[in-house]
């Protein structure tokens, strides 16, 4: 177990290094020039050159990457070009908002997914089952921004129940969390359904003559816990990668918004920082799923 953990951690570390290297090279190779962006349109070539020198952008790629990497290994993500602040400070200030939204979204997903997945499994083959399965497909095929705009139109513009955008109170989080939750719940519902059906079809369940409530809650539902945890692990990564869109529509002041502003200003250190944070979340999510599974299910531990 300890050896496995060390191995996985080392692997995760290497993957993050790789992500850093690829992102760095990509950003270096792209035609956007941060020095010109900072200098402004009317700046002379000399000003641009001096800014470039100041930022160290006139050095060879390898030297630049080495500087970044040595900083990174000491936990230093560099300084923002435009805001002149430590990137880590900026990200740390935005992270709570993003994590809150993520937790709320996943909560909605899991609650909806378990509820509808269970209903579908118990009544498999029925009209309700087909309805749930179809709805789950619609959910996973829907573009996030469209769902977000529609929810805004119905519940904020027309009914006025929730604020259009912003951050701070419980009312603010309802619509963004619902957007994430309703669309993502489809995956959970499908998985809960198939995990439960697997148990419901077992001979021991069919012959014991237990009450259906006992079967569902003591036998069938626990079988769905592992897949749900694995799903949450994947979801964390998915969410962090896609957070820009929801945060843009709802004006949610998280790291997605930070990244979006940075992209428009070609603020490369922030873009790097957010990309690495997202990659870290993806790796950590997968790790979480892999490590929690054997704790819950002893059968996996031995293999």
């Amino acid at each position, binding site marked *: 177990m300890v050896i496995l953990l060390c191995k996985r951690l080392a692997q995760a570390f290497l993957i993050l290094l790789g*992500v850093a290297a690829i992102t760095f090279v990509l950003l270096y190779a792209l035609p956007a020039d941060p020095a010109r962006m900072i200098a402004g349109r009317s700046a002379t070539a000399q000003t641009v050159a001096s800014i470039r020198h100041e930022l160290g952008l006139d050095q060879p790629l390898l030297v630049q990457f080495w500087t970044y990497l040595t900083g990174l290994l000491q936990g230093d993500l560099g300084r923002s070009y435009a805001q002149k602040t430590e990137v880590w400070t900026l990200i740390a200030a935005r992270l709570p908002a993003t994590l809150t939204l993520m937790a709320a979204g996943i909560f909605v997903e899991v609650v909806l997914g378990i509820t509808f997945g269970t209903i579908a499994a118990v009544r498999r083959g029925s009209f309700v089952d087909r309805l749930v399965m*179809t709805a789950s497909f619609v959910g996973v*095929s829907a573009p996030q921004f*469209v769902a977000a705009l529609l929810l805004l139109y119905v519940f904020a513009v027309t009914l006025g129940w929730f604020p259009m955008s912003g951050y701070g109170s419980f009312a603010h989080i309802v619509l963004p969390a619902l957007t994430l939750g309703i669309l993502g719940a489809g995956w959970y519902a499908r998985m809960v359904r198939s995990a439960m059906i697997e148990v419901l079809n077992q001979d021991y369940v069919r012959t014991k003559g237990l009450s259906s409530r006992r079967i569902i809650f003591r036998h069938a539902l626990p079988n769905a816990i592992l897949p749900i945890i694995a799903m949450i692990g994947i979801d964390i990564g998915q969410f*962090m990668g*896609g957070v820009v869109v929801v945060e843009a529509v709802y004006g949610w002041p998280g790291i997605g918004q930070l990244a979006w502003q940075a992209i428009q200003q070609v603020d490369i250190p922030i873009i790097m920082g957010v990309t690495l944070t997202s990659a870290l979340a*993806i790796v950590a999510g997968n790790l979480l799923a892999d490590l929690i599974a054997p704790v819950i299910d002893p059968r996996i531990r031995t293999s």
Partner: protein
Amino acid sequence: MTVLRSLFRQPSALFGLAVVLVVVVLALAAPLVAPFNPDEQMFDGLTLEGAPMPPGGQFLLGTDTLGRDLLSRMLYGARTSLIIGLVANGIAVAIGLFIGIVAGYLRGFMGNVLMRFTDLMMAFPALLLAIVLAALMKPSLWIVAMVIALVNWVQVARIVYTETRGLVERDFIMAERSLGAGHGRILLLHILPHLIPTAIVWGTLGIATTVLLEATLSFLGIGVQPPQPSWGNIIFESQSYFQAAPWLVFFPGMVILLTALAFNLVGDALRDILDPTQRGRG
């Protein structure tokens, strides 16, 4: 043929197939069926106050903020979405097939390097990467297609890799090899044909992902650039106006949803038919 017959037996797949057909035909026939020029800013396309016209009357789905006919723009937008869907996804499947086959067949050092690279790409925040790439390059239809292809090949590569590894172990490949067949012959005649169902399934499912990704990038203003219409940029252009003119979000949004849903339904049904071992998996 049996594949088609099985498809027709499932109502949801049939529905998906019908929607796909309608979208393809309308996109191809856009110049014939579109009631107006999609780029023309019509004088009577705006109300006296300069607001977009609601659906109904002369403009079936209403007009946008510049007085252009929404239905015509959406019909031409279908072309954009489908072109990107086919090109981007075609490239993605091709890259995925190539890397997956090579890694699965060679194994050894090269195979390992390729698969570790694929693992690495799995840890990349795909949408964020696409947004960064699209935003920092001068966006155009082809750049968007390339960005999407660059992000989407990874899953195909992993699946193809697993299947190729399984195939390489099979007796008929061993027999072929002992008869003196070269790598090229084995790969082209014996391994690739077995992967075609996988390529078809992921090709279809991938179009759904691609259509969604293109719409998202265009919605953020970094995808297909106006005046060239795309379903995503129609919403982008009218976003600030959506409280007053919700149809400008609703209609293109529904079309994006329907198209992605249709390709997902067909792809899912194809997976069930072509690969029974995957049945019921997410």
